[in-house]
């Protein structure tokens, strides 16, 4: 990245290495960490003692802030969002915050309007509808 000053996630300026890096939604992290934790539980009586503080806090956080719990739903959310040419970062912010209106979606991820491809409101609306359907049938 060319100098710390310029970082601004709202404009999707987060440095090349992170733009390409795979981001994970809270619900995905929750599945992975809970699985890890279960594995530890089988190996030891006191699994919380085995994990780092960072692990513990991350797990607590993603449990509280996962909008989708069921693994199939989690997979579908990523699949639906990836139809809209979003950057990884944008995709995950939308999946985490679950905006309910087009206006809110743009406020949460301003870059979906700024970049060349500029999703139109109808496309965003459709995306949000598809997401709320998953939520409803979960």
């Amino acid at each position, binding site marked *: 990245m060319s100098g710390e000053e310029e970082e601004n996630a709202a404009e999707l300026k987060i440095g090349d290495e992170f733009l390409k890096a795979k981001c994970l939604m809270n619900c995905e*992290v929750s599945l992975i960490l809970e699985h890890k934790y279960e594995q530890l539980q089988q190996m030891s009586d006191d699994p919380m003692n085995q994990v780092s503080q*960072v692990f513990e806090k991350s797990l607590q956080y993603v449990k509280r802030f996962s909008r989708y719990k069921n693994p199939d739903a989690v997979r579908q959310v990523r699949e639906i969002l990836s139809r809209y040419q979003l950057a990884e970062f944008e995709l995950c912010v939308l999946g985490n*915050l679950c905006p309910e209106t087009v*206006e809110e979606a743009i406020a949460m991820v301003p870059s979906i309007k700024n970049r060349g491809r500029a999703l139109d409101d109808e496309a965003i609306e459709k995306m949000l509808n598809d997401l709320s359907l998953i939520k*409803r049938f979960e």
Partner: protein
Amino acid sequence: MFLKVQLPWNVIISAEDLDAKGLMLQRSIIIRLLDDFACKKATKDLGYFSAVTTLDSIGEGKVRQHSGDVLFPVVFSGITFKLFRGEILDGVVHKVLKHGVFLRCGPVENVYLSNLKMADYKYVPGENPIFLNDKLSKIGKDVTVRFMVIGTKWLEVEREFQALVSLEGDFLGPVSYLWSRDMEAAAAGGGDSVRSLFNGITAKCERPNSFLRNTMMRAYPNNGALGGVLPNNYTFPFVLKVCAFDSEPLARGREVAHWRP
């Protein structure tokens, strides 16, 4: 934001942990890697190290001359958490001070929201101090707040990040307050429009999860002011369900359930 990263790492295995049997060696490497990973806690570039997911490759071991330990270059995948400037996230308040509040967000404990960056909120002192705005939206301990990151700072000695966040912007603030926006419009129209909204919802939705959440949460603080819609025995189960559904603390559920007009 949680990131999936692939990292090279050097694992040092001491001579006594070396074993001719391959499986045991792999085990020692993994254990050592997990220990190192947990100790490291965070780096400036990648953020906090939450978990190792897979060990992707183990290179040729090299014997270190003076100690006899063997150094294995490995590549593994893991999950890290990093806050970006301009990113919008949810966090939970854990400390309320006179000039602002501290939030917890993922593994980051020091997320500071200054009163200057939530100018419409006023500090209310007391045993459990809170920040309150003129719409009676409350920011206190254990409240979920949606904020934007305006700056981060890496503390090399503590191996930790600090972040400054702000509520200046649309759709930012305490989250239970955010849910209530839909209701705000209806509330402005008076009791009747709220009632018709209620009726509309129950008629339309078979499994009215997220929508009812919005409605009910708002209906409860506004009932008095509207003098119209009172909760009936159908309301409370919904509210409780709502609380459970959004993994808010049980305390909030109780607060709602024990509410009396």
